[in-house]
């Protein structure tokens, strides 16, 4: 199995567990690989409150969380919310 860096592992886990329509994982550690920012859009967030959505992300990364110093979930949206936000941004 090829060695994956943490960012790829996070990406892979989130894709496998939450089948996002959009995902962006940013390494905010400045290279040490222990601090990340996640932006994720998934149908699985439909009908769930923000706390529940964040729990789903944390749960998907339970194994990885042991090595991560800080995980910041800056966005956990449904495809609808994401679309609306994109539209309002481009219309400005």
């Amino acid at each position, binding site marked *: 199995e090829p060695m994956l860096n943490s960012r790829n592992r996070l990406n892979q886990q989130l894709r496998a567990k939450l089948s996002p329509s959009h995902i962006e994982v940013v390494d905010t550690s400045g290279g040490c690989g222990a601090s990340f920012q996640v932006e994720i859009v998934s149908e699985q967030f439909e009908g769930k409150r*923000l706390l529940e959505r964040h729990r789903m992300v944390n749960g998907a990364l339970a194994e990885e969380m042991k090595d991560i110093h800080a995980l910041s979930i800056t966005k956990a949206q449904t495809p609808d919310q994401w679309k609306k936000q994109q539209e309002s941004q481009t219309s400005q």
Partner: protein
Amino acid sequence: STRCFAALSPELKTTLDKVVTSHKVILFMKGTKDFPQCGFSNTVVSILKAVNVPFETVNILENEILRSGLKEYSQWPTFPQLYIDGEFFGGCDITIDAYKSGELQELLEKASLS
């Protein structure tokens, strides 16, 4: 994935029940409100100061049992952890989001009236 929680002992659970309800707004954080030792904890302290609500902080860096116990109790892997009216509200990102949307101010107003 396998998520392995060592079961909370009933004694520790009872203690945590008491701690999280000891104040209407209580923040478990790294450091104290006057001396936060982590940017995320600092952010939540700043928000609580900005909404001008009385709150208590508990430094989890000084108590390893509390630190590991709360992770299980809240089912939340990181700190800070904000509790309002004895209920887990969220970590840093959720608090920022709720502050921006006004949901936090609304909830705190309700909590102080109840």
